[in-house]
């Protein structure tokens, strides 16, 4: 039953990858979407079955077969469905199916084979992602982990004819390799410590141990795992690949680089909550890194001009918030934010996709504006998404982000709370900027200009330009998303409004179902059912009566922050447009610094890439390869050559000579035996 969930998309992948090029678009696209929808239904049904169970032992295990069996170390290919993976499951399959549907419209101008290739990748990604989520042990999870990395590489570089896309793909792949390397080391460390890689067993054994003080083996292991997570989830220091990943098709950015894959790191920490919570050192690092990433990415996002890049940086910063939550031990809050974020960030990306679609590949917000009246649906859904992201009261983002911040504060990390608050301010601001610049004001660029530079840049027209290029009416006004896309946008918009209400905090009279639901996943399986509820309280945030007041105030503060941010944005980019430019000039250094993303890429180039390539060229290539390896090979060859030249004299070609030599041997051997 569980196996079916990843299997369905995989079948879709098989079909599309083998005979997709022969199928018409409607069939291949429909097939892929159908696979996703089906697997969503299966997932929903199995989750429903999970709901029916007693909270204490909510889990469904399915072991397919034994994958590795060496000595006492065995790894089963086993899937485990528990509250945590259930949430992820629904997010992935649900949003995945929506994005599949969206893509059928968005990618419609691709050639048949390209179209099929796209959908086969997408399906493959979904399959791997589901394996990642469902895997009951590290190795199985790692299979999914690597698989999604591969698919993200393939999809970022989907338009591999465009150099920037290919490079971005490579960058993502390489950066992920670094993380994965650490991840493997972490797994090995865990194996060395616990002798197993099964989540439940590890959690049980750790749960039995005291919380580690100081920097011990568990801290090292978890830290390594976290490094892997930073690779996957684009945290400092390994976040640089995500903005470049925007070279991929927009739906891909929505699915992989906003909703699902990048949250794998968060999920991984949540999955090993017990483990991490036994390594306070690591937790601290996680929290700090998360907060730092959040703030930094927010600042960068403030000045970016590419609509997708802005969203990308906002994704990074939101992920930072999630890690912050994880770091302070509020696993429930982190997952909650992950879950809501999936909705509105997907919505935003798809909305931006619709915009780009309408403008035939224009991505620079400076060339947009005034699209409100052309793209009503896109506009409204986009606004909703932005508000949700900004944490406008009553929308999904509000509840989750607010809970994250509250937990941070409640766990006494005031400084981190300040950073988080700043981040949300920034978030509100740049989202406001995005909306205002894109949809308000007057058209700053005739679509003529857009089309012109589209046609000048074949890269564009060949790739992200999908609207109606080739039709005669490119000069006409941009018009709204086709029904399939519009439908998806609306659905997601509704989602981003309502998604938050399963996590309404007690302070607002709700009772945080999600936290309660998730609690068992974060508790050591050893503890009996009775304490699970208590653990749930702990995870969901220890709401004592006194804290409600605090929570309410914080809530007010953060909503105030959100509104303030939006107000600022409105003030700068709507009322006093020139102010932006003047600020940019007056704070030129900062502006330049932000615009160049703190020169991080350059720093990496200088500090890592160049030395590495230099060492490889001068050392490995010229010395090791040419000197040692080639030398050895050639040496052997020359030895053989010389000896052959000598022995050649015996090769007379006269059979009788050979026969006589044989006879010499015979006579000698026989003589030896006779002499003895």
């Amino acid at each position: 039953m569980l196996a079916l969930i990843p299997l369905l998309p995989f079948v879709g992948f098989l079909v599309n990858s083998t005979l997709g090029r022969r199928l018409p678009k409607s069939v291949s696209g429909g097939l892929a979407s159908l696979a996703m929808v089906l697997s969503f239904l299966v997932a929903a049904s199995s989750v429903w079955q999970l709901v029916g169970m007693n909270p204490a032992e909510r889990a469904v295990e399915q072991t397919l077969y034994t994958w590795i069996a060496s000595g006492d170390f065995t790894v089963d290919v086993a899937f485990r469905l528990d509250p945590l993976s259930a949430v992820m499951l629904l997010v992935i399959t649900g949003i995945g199916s929506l994005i599949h549907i969206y893509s059928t419209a968005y990618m419609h101008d691709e050639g048949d084979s390209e179209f099929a290739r796209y959908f086969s990748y997408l399906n493959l990604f979904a399959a791997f992602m589901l394996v990642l989520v469902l895997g009951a042990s590290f190795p199985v999870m790692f299979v999914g982990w690597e698989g999604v990395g591969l698919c993200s590489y393939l999809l970022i570089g989907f338009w591999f004819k465009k150099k920037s896309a290919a490079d971005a793909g490579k960058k993502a792949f390489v950066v992920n390799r670094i993380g994965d390397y650490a991840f493997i080391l972490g797994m090995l460390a865990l194996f060395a410590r616990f002798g197993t890689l099964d989540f439940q067993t590890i959690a049980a054994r750790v749960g039995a141990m005291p919380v580690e003080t100081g920097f011990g083996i568990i801290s090292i292991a978890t830290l390594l795992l976290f490094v892997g997570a930073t690779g996957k989830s684009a945290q400092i220091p390994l976040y640089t690949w995500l903005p470049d990943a925007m070279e991929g098709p927009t739906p891909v950015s929505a699915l992989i680089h906003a909703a699902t894959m990048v949250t794998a790191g968060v999920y991984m920490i949540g999955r090993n909550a017990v483990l991490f919570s036994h390594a306070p050192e690591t937790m601290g690092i996680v929290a700090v890194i998360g907060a730092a990433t959040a703030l930094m990415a927010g600042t960068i996002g403030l000045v970016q001009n590419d609509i997708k890049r802005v969203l990308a940086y906002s994704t990074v910063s939101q992920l930072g918030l999630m890690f912050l939550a994880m770091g302070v031990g509020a696993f429930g809050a982190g997952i909650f934010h992950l879950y809501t974020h999936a909705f509105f960030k997907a919505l935003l990306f798809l909305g931006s996709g619709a915009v780009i679609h309408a403008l035939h590949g224009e991505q620079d917000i400076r060339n947009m504006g005034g699209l409100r009246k052309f793209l009503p649906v896109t506009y409204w859904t986009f606004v909703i998404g932005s508000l949700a992201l900004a944490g406008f009261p009553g929308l999904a983002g509000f509840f989750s982000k607010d809970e994250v911040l509250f937990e941070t504060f409640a766990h006494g990390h005031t400084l981190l709370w300040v950073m988080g608050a700043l981040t949300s301010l920034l978030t509100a601001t740049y989202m406001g900027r995005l909306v205002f610049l894109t949809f308000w004001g007057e058209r700053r660029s005739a679509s003529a200009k857009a089309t012109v530079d589209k046609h000048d840049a074949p890269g564009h027209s060949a790739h992200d330009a999908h609207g109606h290029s080739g039709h005669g009416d490119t000069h006409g006004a941009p018009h709204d998303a086709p029904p399939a896309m519009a439908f998806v946008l609306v659905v997601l918009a509704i989602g981003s409004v309502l998604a938050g209400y399963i996590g309404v905090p007690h302070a607002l009279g709700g009772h945080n179902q999600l936290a309660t639901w998730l609690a068992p996943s974060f508790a050591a399986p050893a503890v009996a059912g009775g304490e699970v509820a208590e653990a749930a309280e702990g995870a969901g945030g220890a709401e004592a009566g006194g804290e409600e007041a605090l929570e309410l105030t914080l809530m007010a503060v953060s909503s105030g922050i959100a509104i303030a941010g939006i107000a600022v944005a409105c003030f700068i980019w709507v009322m006093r447009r020139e102010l932006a430019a003047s600020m940019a000039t007056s704070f030129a250094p900062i502006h330049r610094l932000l615009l160049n993303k703190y020169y991080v890429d350059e720093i990496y180039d200088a500090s890592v890439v160049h030395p590495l390539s230099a060492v490889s060229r001068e050392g490995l290539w010229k010395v090791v390869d040419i000197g040692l390896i080639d030398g050895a090979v050639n040496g052997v060859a020359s030895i053989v050559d010389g000896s052959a030249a000598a022995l050649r004299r015996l090769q007379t070609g006269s059979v009788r000579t050979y026969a006589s030599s044989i006879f010499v041997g015979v006579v000698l051997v026989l003589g030896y035996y006779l002499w003895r």
Partner: protein
Amino acid sequence: MPETLSFYALAGLAVVASALVIGQRNPMYSVMMLIASFAGLAGLYILLDAPFVAMAQIIIYAGAIMVLFLFVVMLLNAPQEDGADWDRTHPLRRPGVARVGALLATLLVVQLAWALNAATGLSAGVGERTDAATVSSIRALGRMLFNDHGFAFEATSILILVAMVGAVVLARREGES
């Protein structure tokens, strides 16, 4: 007594005929002589209570392999050996080498004779220790061949197949498809 006589007759036939095989230059006669020597050997096999081997000797060697030789000799129709000195540039290609080889052969004979001399228990009659029935039964032979030596048997069948293909490929003229 008749057995002894027949033994010496057959052995003499085999040895003399073999000597004549290499003793003269006409391959045609060589083939005929070899057939004669095979006949002698077949007789010896019968004396050794191996009638089946004897018949196989006649059928396979005399009846098939030798006919093949005969066929080739007639096909090439090169009755006389060509004594031309072909390529003598290489020291090891001198005819002396061949003589050394012959010397070695005689040396081998000496060694083997010595070995026979040294070995014990060979003076006993061939059939003394065991009775003929044990070795002359074709049924037992077949059982052993197909049970104990089944694998070798299959292997030889493959060998034959390969040899057949090889012969066809080798003997084909260039340009023939």
